[in-house]
């Protein structure tokens, strides 16, 4: 698929935004100021961005516990996300959600999810809305390799096939499910298993934005032709632990180091678009520094953000009434 200069710059910027967001969180996390569980997406940027670059606010995605990348790629405001992760009253979810529950319905982002397998059934429901509208919009669920074994995910796949919904199931294989290898817990080949459900599977190299972007284009063509749902499977790695603080005893010491050198989605992108492509390194460097400054500023403003009070705790349980304090 041909992409314009603007497209390419935007994609790079999005990937850099995610990387910077996560690297910064990793550092900030040590200060102890960030509460709760934080699962970082760094290393998998090409997948979220390669997919979401095809989508508009009319399309929907559901995400996972490792959701920052999907949120940013789908258009959530990184500043409001940062405020949310810092638990601020002006965060994207008023500080009630936190890292694992970031959502922005207006952007078609139906939520990160603390429950593995929670998202796909919801995204199938959103696909029903897309079908009813008939405007070519689609619904995409993101999930890891571990999540592919959850009963809710299997049900969602079959349901989407039966109802011929415009739904794309994305599986990001980053090698691990918490402390256990994904290959241990997927009893068969995930591609064949998914195909067995009647879902054509488009495969991509999860380190390569262009590969993912192309696979998503193919997936969209399939879905928009009214042929029903399909899946997209991409391998990748996560640069950090399962959660911030994970000692990663299951991982060989230099596993990530090697991958950072040889399989970095940003380096790969950069090489590709500068060597053969239309951009020069300076343009990308400019994006890098702009994004770095922006994220720095997000963290600064998040740290200074207002803390939520009891009125935030009690609001929005219901649309029409509120619990008594």
């Amino acid at each position, binding site marked *: 698929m041909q992409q314009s200069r603007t497209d390419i710059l935007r994609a790079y910027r999005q990937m850099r935004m995610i990387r910077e967001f996560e690297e910064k969180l990793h550092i900030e996390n040590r200060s102890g100021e960030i509460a709760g569980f934080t699962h970082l997406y760094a290393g998998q940027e090409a997948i979220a961005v390669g997919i979401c670059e095809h989508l508009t606010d009319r399309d*929907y995605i*559901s995400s996972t516990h490792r959701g920052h990348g999907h949120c940013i790629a789908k258009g959530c405001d990184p500043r409001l996300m940062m405020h949310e992760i810092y638990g601020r009253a002006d*965060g*994207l*979810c*008023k500080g*009630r*959600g936190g890292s694992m*529950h970031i*959502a*922005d*319905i*207006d952007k078609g982002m*139906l*939520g990160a*999810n*603390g*429950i593995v397998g*929670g998202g*796909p*059934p*919801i*995204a*199938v*429901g*959103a*696909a*029903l*809305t*897309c*079908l*009813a509208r008939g405007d070519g919009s689609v*619904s995409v669920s993101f999930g890891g390799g571990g999540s592919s074994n959850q*009963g*809710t995910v299997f*049900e*969602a796949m*079959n*349901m989407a096939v*039966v*109802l011929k919904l415009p739904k794309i199931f994305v599986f990001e294989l980053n090698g691990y499910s918490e402390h256990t290898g994904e290959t241990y817990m997927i009893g068969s080949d995930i591609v064949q298993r998914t195909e067995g459900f009647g879902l054509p599977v488009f495969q991509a190299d999860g380190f390569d934005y262009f590969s993912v972007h192309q696979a998503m284009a193919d997936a969209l063509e399939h879905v928009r032709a009214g042929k029903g749902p399909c899946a997209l499977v991409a391998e990748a790695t996560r640069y950090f632990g399962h959660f911030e603080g994970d000692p990663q005893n299951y991982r060989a010491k230099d596993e990530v180091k090697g991958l950072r050198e040889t399989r970095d989605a940003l380096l790969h992108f950069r090489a590709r678009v500068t060597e053969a492509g239309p951009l020069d390194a300076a343009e990308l460097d400019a994006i890098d520094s702009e994004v770095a400054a922006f994220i720095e500023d997000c963290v600064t403003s998040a740290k200074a953000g207002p803390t939520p009070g009891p009125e935030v705790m009690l*609001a*929005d*349980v*219901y*649309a*029409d*009434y509120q*619990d008594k304090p």
Partner: protein
Amino acid sequence: MTVKSVRDALNEALFQEMRRDPSVIVMGEDVSGGAGGSSGSRDAAGGIFGVTKGLITEFGEHRVIDTPISESAIIGLANGAALTGMRPVAELMFADFVGVAMDQIYNQLAKFRYMFGGKAKAPVVVRMSMGAGMNAGAQHSQTIYSMLSAVPGLKVVVPSNPADAKGMLAAAIRDDDPVIFLEHKALYSTKGEVPDGEYIAPLHGANLVQSGKDATVVTLGRMVPFSQKASAKLAEEGITFDLIDLRSTSPIDEELILESLSLTGRLVVVDESNPMCSIASEIAAIAAEKGFSSLRGPVIRVTAPHTPVPFARELERMYVPGPDRIAAAIRKAVKGE
């Protein structure tokens, strides 16, 4: 007003709301039925209890969606559709089946709005049949409402008569919050006056079914007619009571209960559920906490025992609180031991 069964009243509410609002859709197992069957009929079931009968004929299979046996995906379907602008009415057939869809109900549906900062709304109605009375055994006879009323973010309603069945289902569909709509399976054929034409009954607020002087009896669902039977017996003995039909178990209409209690001083709660952490417990607790100064004697809870629902006719009859047990409890509350 026309005399109708609960079943027909519910069906009428669905027709009413689906005609009025194209975003209302229905989904579940056999909500139409007949797909892939040899008779060619697509209205072969209309729901296992006939509540969705005829909908497919008028609204078609894009709005009346038969699903595989995949309850998590059924609720997921409703959840995702609701977040994106539809008003889905999902059917779970038997309330007992919440176990295979619980996460989508209590961790997803109930929490979207709160977790997502108040931006999202999820106007899902989950319809389920519940309760004992058909000897359907331990996995097809539970009441479930206590379990779900405990969950912040869900509204839970339990209509006890055809008028409420119609009016509350319509209200549930129009409500912007998730509503668990529980239909007592032993009441589907119960008849009563139902307002004709468009009819909405409020979701919140209990109903003072009858007034009396000696006690406050709080109850719901099938226990309402049973308590009315007890009332007939006790009237002969000169005992009368306020009979409150809760209608909604979340929220609970505390005001009405406490007001009545302030007049009668005695409280009996009748609940078909198992006793522990039940709606009966909740109401007894409300009385002990907020109505203590009104209480002139111990609260009495009339519930099923702490056992699964047994199968045999005789056992199920013993299990379910009946008019005699209810009358005995009220008598005891009023006259002491």
